[in-house]
């Protein structure tokens, strides 16, 4: 078969900039099919999660524990990264560091070229999406094939994942049936889900057998033992990390924990929060390449540690909480905005609430300053987050960073991107008025007397609403009359 790698070669599936966010959201909200499929899927996932936590006390205790483990790990992050590196190296794993997506791709391309690799099979990895790994490999003539069923579907369709856990959640089985019939030689149209999965299994097993390199993400990296943990259901993660001669794992620098025992509660709360499963089918703990008496497994294992803006979030005590994330996706499942617009409208690798708080660090606020405003601040994301990231608070903080005067915070790339001197001046005036009782009284007296002069065009407000007009009498006057 012609692999999707060939079909999309040279054609980046890069996202449009967030400037177009409003138009994309408008289109998404007006697509009833999309809204229906996301509504259904999110209701399903919310119910499944709820069923996993019948005991509120246990949930509270587990969330607090998970939060404290993540905060503890972050408080020792540089030490733990060095410890992880030392123990992985001792175990025979080669550790690489990359500040940018370009560096990460260059490292991995170098490994591929050293092995004259033609095909890389991939387990699910959002970090590889973040760095546009597939495109970078294809541009250099190396095939990169997704093997997670959802990712495989999305790659066949030339799309990006619309959910971090269920990448093809926006596709119906009929669309997938058509996709398979069109792209996989010898396959007739069938929308039987079991049959479709068996087709995917057959095609991808052929690839596992011949691939030169397997790529995977990492859910937790354990510093004290030098162990990479992977959570999955399909077995493709095990295939990618076991069958090819070389395994490359890629992860953000924040995924490290100190002790092996720390993964037990995090793993439990991850699967329950993500898909409402008590446990995933596989929990795969990898501590090195084939060695000693081993008869199988890769001969080389590499780990690529990627920064890509994470150290910027780390530098600020409040924003550092963003890095507690274990990528469960619960915040998007419970987000009323995500449910209405789906994952693609955001235009970023990570959609939904987590995307709004992490993307500004990866891409800068110039491109992403609208994201934190795409929220009603209802608080659902913060309530379900298994590691208690105060997402609404961080959204407000990022709105402030985007709208404050340029150079107010040079540590944040793109800070001040949404700064508007007129709006800023208005707020300043308002603050002055409001802060002093005498000026406030004078202002309201004038406002009620001259209410007829209120402008009828009130910027964004009158786009969909009738103009605001001060009342004819002030509250204080009405109260006075009553006495």
């Amino acid at each position, binding site marked *: 078969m012609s692999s999707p790698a060939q079909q999309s070669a040279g054609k980046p599936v890069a996202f449009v900039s967030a400037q177009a966010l409003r138009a994309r959201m408008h289109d998404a909200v007006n697509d009833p099919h999309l809204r229906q499929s996301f509504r259904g899927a999110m209701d399903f996932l919310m119910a499944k999660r709820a069923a996993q936590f019948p005991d509120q006390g246990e949930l509270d205790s587990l969330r607090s524990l998970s939060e404290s483990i993540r905060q503890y790990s972050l408080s020792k992050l540089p030490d733990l990264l060095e410890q992880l590196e030392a123990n992985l190296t001792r175990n025979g794993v080669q550790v690489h560091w990359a500040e940018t997506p370009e560096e990460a791709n260059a490292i991995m391309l170098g490994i591929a070229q050293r092995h004259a690799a033609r095909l890389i099979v991939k387990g699910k990895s959002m970090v590889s999406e973040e760095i546009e790994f597939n495109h970078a490999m294809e541009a250099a003539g190396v095939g990169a094939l997704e093997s997670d069923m959802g990712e495989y579907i999305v790659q066949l369709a030339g799309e990006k994942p619309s959910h971090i856990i269920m990448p093809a959640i926006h596709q119906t089985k009929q669309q997938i049936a058509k996709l398979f019939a069109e792209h996989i030689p010898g396959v007739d149209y069938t929308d039987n889900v079991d049959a479709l999965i068996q087709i995917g299994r057959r095609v991808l097993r052929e690839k596992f057998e011949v691939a030169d390199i397997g790529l995977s993400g990492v859910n937790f990296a354990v510093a004290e033992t030098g162990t990479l943990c992977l959570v999955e259901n399909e077995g493709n993660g095990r295939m990618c990390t076991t069958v090819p001669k070389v395994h490359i794992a890629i992860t953000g620098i924040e995924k490290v924990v100190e002790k092996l025992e720390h993964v037990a509660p995090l793993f439990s709360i991850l699967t329950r929060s993500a898909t409402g499963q008590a446990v995933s089918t596989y929990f795969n703990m990898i501590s090195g390449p084939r060695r000693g008496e081993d*008869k199988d*497994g890769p001969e080389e294992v590499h780990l690529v540690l990627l920064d890509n803006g994470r150290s910027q979030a780390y530098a600020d005590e409040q924003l550092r909480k963003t890095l507690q994330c274990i990528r469960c996706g619960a915040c998007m499942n419970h987000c009323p905005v995500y449910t209405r617009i789906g994952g693609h409208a955001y235009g970023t690798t990570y959609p939904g609430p987590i995307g709004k708080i992490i993307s500004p660090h990866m891409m800068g606020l110039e491109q992403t300053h609208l994201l934190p405003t795409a929220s009603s601040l209802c608080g659902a994301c913060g309530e379900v987050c298994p590691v208690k990231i105060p997402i609404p608070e961080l959204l407000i903080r990022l709105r402030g960073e985007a709208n404050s005067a340029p150079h107010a915070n040079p540590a944040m790339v793109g800070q001040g991107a949404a700064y508007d001197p007129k709006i800023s001046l208005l707020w300043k005036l308002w603050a002055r008025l409001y802060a002093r009782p005498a000026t406030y009284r004078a202002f309201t007296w004038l406002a009620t007397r001259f209410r007829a002069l209120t402008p009828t065009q009130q910027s964004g407000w009158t786009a969909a609403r009738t103009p605001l007009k001060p009342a004819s009498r002030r509250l204080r006057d009405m109260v006075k009359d009553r006495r």
Partner: protein
Amino acid sequence: MSARERILAKLRKAQPELPQHLPSLDAHYAPRVRGESRQERLARFRTGIEGFHADVHISTAGNWPQVLATLCAEKNIQTLMYGAATPAAAQLEATAFGGTTLRPWAGQFEDLKADLFHRVDAGFTLARGAIAETGSLILWPSGDEPRTLSLIPPIHFVLLDAATVHPTFYDALVNENWAAGLPTNALLISGPSKTADIQQTLAYGAHGPKELIVIVINVEGGTV
């Protein structure tokens, strides 16, 4: 400066002076300990893993090879591959397997790769233990029982000793002090491979085994 040094320098600059307190895991787990008997633990494991579509057969130390032979015949298994050097292997080899060829793992993966993908119908491995809370098997593959035995063949048979069922994952890795020395690959397995990536519809037999069959040695002989 290398990328490594630059990243570490940025983090060091922002690192809090004192680390947070080491979280107490026991404070969460200790009050939730269940005073279960072994049979109750086994029952809970069984309910859990059956919920994930695995089959469980309760047997004894002497009779399990017979149970396996019967299952192989029922499932029409031509070739069953297993690790040659385990104590269980000797028991297997002493059992009449009818139409099923018993094939011990011999050599390196590369020598067996094509057979594993195309000609071996089932793999047989031991479990190191299990977890009652989630219905999970613990496997520590080794040179004797390589990792692909539980991955590539379409059916995976596992032999589990009921005495090794732990209440939780946390209990297993703390009580056995896993941190002191992990194998190249350690695994938790909870059912045959599956996916819900097409319209949230659950389908079994994604990329790993399509069937997971657990045979439990239950020395007390109690039924579960």
